[in-house]
């Protein structure tokens, strides 16, 4: 399935979004679970504190009881020692227990009961010890036998057991919660990582296949390009060959046309000489023969007139043949690419017509911005010379002639050469016609055969360029020539 640019971008965005969401999920869950762990941990610590305190308190009470009983039995102060140590701890531990159980309102009542029991027990123990010390051992044993202290102690033990069991349960539950949280964290991470791997994989696949398709497309384009170039080259060679053939044909035809023309003109000249002698003779003679008058008219008027027309026609034909010869020879000429300074060339061409222009108050401006090209100097001289001659020939008589020669750099290694005049201009219908052989435009007030611009166009084209014109009748004309900056590269493509 080909991946279009659009699809590629869209799927890329979707995949990135999915990957981002998965990552955000992992991060969010992790933070939440860590928070939870913290809470469980705190609860565990509290439970452990409660348990420790409860155990401590119970131990202290038991120690106190042990000391009391030992003393009652032996009446030796030495046995009283655990009692004295434990009594201090009882108060301390109770306070601690109270603090630990502050967050649990349900513990308030049992605590009060415990307080009362502890007080009862402590009072009982203090009373029995005092009695023993004053010698009343029987009294003390009797107090113990009332079981009030034992009952208080048993209730306390029950409370402690319950508290310790509760704390143990809490510890177990906390550990369980912790484990669950860790498991959840692991699974979340695994799931998120899986999604990210899938997304990255899919994206990588998309990129790879898209790149492969791009490479393939580029290869196809290159292939098409190469075959196109090949085709263009073949066509160019064909065209060049056809062009060469036409030029050779024109050359041979015109060359062969000249031979009979030499005869026509030569013998016309002979004829003219003979007719001249004949008419001189006839003019000076008189003859009554009626046929003589007709013969004299023929010799003195008809024949010379006919010869005049024949001569005019052959002269015209000669000019045409010469023009075709000139152009076909131009096409056959070997071009010689060399560095040409356009500024110098334009100045030289301008200098050549300076006399004709300055006589009538006109001027030629040369403004060359791109001075250096590599081209055929002779062709360029002839092109510019022809255009400047035309500017002089077809100037508007009532205003001084101004000619501007300018150049401009064009993209693609080309140069534009413009020759602008303020002459009589060329009508719009003739803009293409003036470049054709033997065609002229406007009033036929100047001598010419209509070959100048045709010749110019042939030369410009053989330099790999083209010529166009911009003109408004009565305002002036601008001839615009575009040329390759380097004739060599053009010749290479033509002859390849």
């Amino acid at each position, binding site marked *: 399935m080909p991946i279009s640019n659009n699809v590629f971008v869209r799927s890329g965005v979707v995949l990135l979004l999915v990957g981002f969401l998965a990552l955000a999920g992992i991060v969010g869950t992790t933070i939440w679970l860590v928070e939870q762990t913290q809470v469980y941990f705190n609860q565990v610590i509290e439970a452990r504190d409660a348990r420790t305190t409860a155990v401590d308190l119970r131990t202290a009470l038991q120690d106190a009881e042990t000391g009391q009983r030992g003393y009652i039995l032996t009446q030796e102060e030495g046995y009283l020692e655990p009692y004295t140590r434990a009594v201090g701890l009882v108060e301390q531990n109770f306070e601690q227990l109270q603090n630990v159980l502050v967050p649990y309102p349900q513990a308030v009542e049992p605590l009060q009961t415990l307080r009362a029991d502890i007080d009862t027990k402590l009072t009982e123990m203090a009373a029995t010890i005092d009695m023993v010390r004053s010698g009343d051992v029987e009294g003390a044993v009797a107090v113990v036998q009332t079981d009030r202290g034992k009952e208080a102690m048993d209730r306390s033990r029950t409370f402690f057991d319950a508290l310790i069991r509760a704390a143990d349960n809490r510890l177990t539950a906390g550990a369980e919660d912790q484990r669950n949280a860790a498991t959840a964290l692991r699974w979340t991470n695994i799931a998120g990582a899986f999604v990210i791997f899938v997304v990255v994989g899919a994206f990588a696949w998309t990129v790879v296949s898209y790149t492969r398709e791009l490479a393939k497309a580029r290869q196809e384009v290159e292939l098409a390009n190469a075959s196109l170039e090949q085709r263009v080259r073949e066509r160019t060679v064909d065209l060049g060959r056809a062009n060469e053939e036409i030029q050779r044909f024109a050359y041979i035809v015109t060359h062969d046309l000249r031979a009979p023309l*030499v*005869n026509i*003109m030569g013998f016309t*000249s002979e004829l003219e000489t003979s007719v001249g002698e004949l008419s001189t003779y006839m003019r000076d003679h008189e003859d009554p023969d009626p046929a003589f008058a007709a013969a004299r008219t023929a010799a003195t008027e008809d024949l010379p007139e006919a010869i005049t027309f024949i001569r005019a026609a052959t002269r015209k034909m000669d000019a045409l043949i010469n023009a075709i010869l000139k152009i076909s020879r131009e096409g056959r000429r070997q071009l010689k690419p060399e560095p040409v300074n356009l500024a110098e060339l334009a100045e030289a061409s301008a200098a050549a017509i300076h006399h004709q222009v300055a006589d009538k108050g006109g001027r030629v401006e040369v403004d060359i911005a791109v001075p250096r090209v590599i081209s055929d100097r002779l062709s360029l001289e002839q092109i510019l010379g022809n255009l400047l001659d035309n500017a002089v020939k077809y100037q508007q008589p009532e205003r001084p002639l101004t000619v501007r020669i300018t150049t401009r750099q064009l993209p693609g290694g080309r140069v534009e050469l413009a020759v602008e005049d303020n002459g009589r201009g060329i009508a719009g219908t003739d803009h293409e016609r003036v470049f054709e052989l033997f065609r002229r435009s406007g009033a036929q007030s100047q001598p010419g055969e209509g070959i100048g611009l045709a010749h110019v166009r042939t030369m410009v084209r053989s330099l790999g360029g083209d010529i166009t014109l911009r003109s408004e009748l009565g305002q002036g004309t601008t001839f615009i020539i575009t040329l390759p900056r380097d004739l060599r590269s053009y010749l290479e493509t033509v002859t390849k």
Partner: protein
Amino acid sequence: MSYDAKPVTIVMIEDDEGHARLIEKNIRRAGVNNEIVPFTDGTSALNYLMGADGSGEVSRGRQLLVLLDLNLPDMTGVDILEKVKGNEHTRLTPVVVLTTTDDQREIQRCYDLGANVYITKPVDYDGFANAIRQLGLFFSVIQIPETE
């Protein structure tokens, strides 16, 4: 070089009979009365100049001047020019090349091969006649060396 000049024979090699006639007329009009031997093709002209064996031996001692058209039916005038100027017996014979072509390269080639004068046949008949007349004058003034 001998001063007891024998009359120079003009060898005219021109396939177009009209041109040949015009050239002859003008040579005569210019007052040149030398014998003109016309040829309309290259083979027979070479035969005359070089002899049947092509050695040029036949031209020893002749005083010749060749008027040569470059466009011939069987060969180009350049071939004839090459042979004439390459042969020891005929190489001093003046050759005047006459043609309708004014191709600079062809003109240069003819001069390189030893042509003495190159005249393009202008269709402007007056100019042509003038050129021929001057040629006649040229013939009558110069001493053409006897071929060896």
